[in-house]
């Protein structure tokens, strides 16, 4: 077995281990956080501060009866929850978490796939998410599921445009699709005071990205595909047991990878002013991952905070926001960044 393959396996294992922790922790944060926001207690019986509540939930999910409704397409009904994991569990491969390090004389980049196609790959993999929702809704043989799936696909493809164009504006001054180049571009500072992070010159792009990220992960205020007050549970109305849990894992891990991406594109990724990344390779990797996770955690908390603060949109309002506000805004942002890039300002 070659050294490269071994290193790739180790990095993949590290990401997988982190991402699998995200769901139980985020479920706990969400339930306790919502309780805090709504002046309740939240789950506090299982373990200290209710920390083991998610584990108890997982066991219960495993033991529940798994129902596939009559006349449902059995194969697609089972395939959809598995596909829900794919966007979250594949996009991490292009997100860097540190500078190149030297391990036993081999040069190892701290990113799983240092391919030149980085961001293109990421967008392609992330857009696979819509298949799972459509399959789940179509195969369930249920009106609510079908409506949820149609809405979900319309919403995902509409906001994907704004997201794609916002990301493109970040790549333009960098001139590369590699996310490590994007991080290197953000090193240094403006006037010796502010870190040279993209969030400052590209604030409009950042806003578009964050709003589109909420819509891409089906989170409130954009959780129209689920909309429990009108569609019961949307595309996963007919799902129970562990299949239902897989949709939730997909959603939370998708939030986590999108947060990592947002941190990389707009908040400097693994780079932190004043942190020089010296020392043994494992210390560099730990520092880089720590910085990235800390920045992503900010976004994850923001996701929870917004969910329990804002009401839901109506569906035509959602589409209007996507097509009539975010899309023109992202195109204007793109033109402005292009002009500034050619003029040599950025």
């Amino acid at each position: 077995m070659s050294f490269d393959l071994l290193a790739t396996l180790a990095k993949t294992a590290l990401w997988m281990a982190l991402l699998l922790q995200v769901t139980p922790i985020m479920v706990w944060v969400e339930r306790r956080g919502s309780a805090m926001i709504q002046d309740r207690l939240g789950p506090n019986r299982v373990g200290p501060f209710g920390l083991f509540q998610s584990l108890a939930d997982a066991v219960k999910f495993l033991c529940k009866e798994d129902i596939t409704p009559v006349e449902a397409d059995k194969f697609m009904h089972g395939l959809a929850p598995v596909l829900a994991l794919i966007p979250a569990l594949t996009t991490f491969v292009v997100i860097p978490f540190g500078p190149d390090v030297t391990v036993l004389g081999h040069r190892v980049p701290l990113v799983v796939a240092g391919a030149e196609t980085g961001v293109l790959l990421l967008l392609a993999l992330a857009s696979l998410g819509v298949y799972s929702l459509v399959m789940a809704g179509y195969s369930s043989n249920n009106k609510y599921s079908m409506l949820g799936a149609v809405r979900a696909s319309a919403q995902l493809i509409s906001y994907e445009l704004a997201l794609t164009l916002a990301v493109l504006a970040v790549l333009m001054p960098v001139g590369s699709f590699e996310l490590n180049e994007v991080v290197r571009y953000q090193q240094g500072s403006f006037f010796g005071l502010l870190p040279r992070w993209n969030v400052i010159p590209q604030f409009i792009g950042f806003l578009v990205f964050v709003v589109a990220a909420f819509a891409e992960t089906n989170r409130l205020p954009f959780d129209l595909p689920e909309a429990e007050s009108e569609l019961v549970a949307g595309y996963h109305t007919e799902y129970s047991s562990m299949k239902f849990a897989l949709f939730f894992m997909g959603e939370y891990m998708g939030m986590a990878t999108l947060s990592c991406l947002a941190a990389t594109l707009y908040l400097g990724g693994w780079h932190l002013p004043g942190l020089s990344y010296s020392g043994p390779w494992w210390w560099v990797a730990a520092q880089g991952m720590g910085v990235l996770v800390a920045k992503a955690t900010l976004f994850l908390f923001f996701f929870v905070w917004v969910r329990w603060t804002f009401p839901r949109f109506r569906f035509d309002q959602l589409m209007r926001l996507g097509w009539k506000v975010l899309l023109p805004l992202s195109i204007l942002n793109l033109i402005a960044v292009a002009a500034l890039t050619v003029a040599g300002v950025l």
Partner: protein
Amino acid sequence: MPQDHYPVLLALGLAIALGVVILSLSKFVSRRLGGRVDLTPYESGMPLLDRSHKRISVLFFLIAIDFVVFDVEAAFLYPWALVLREGGWPLFWAMMVFIGLLLVGLAYIWKKGGLDLRPARPKRSLGS
């Protein structure tokens, strides 16, 4: 290079394997009660009266067409962004023409009501 992409296939395989393992574990552990009523589609407590797969509003089809148009444009913009710095102002203006055409298209769809995801209401006249 193609060999740079094998970690993606690895991650893809792991993601599918994880899902399959979790689902089969649940299949072994979970109870099976069954029953005909349990297995009927959920209709808020009512028996299912008609088919579940109904007609979908044509407006969703319009959204899909709009998406295809604009997503292809976005795909054209990606290589442009990569070489913009070397290309300078001529390349910038060349693409502005393209984006201008794109915006004309957007304005047309907008004006025709293709972006309003609701049925067009007939204008109420004062006399009736």
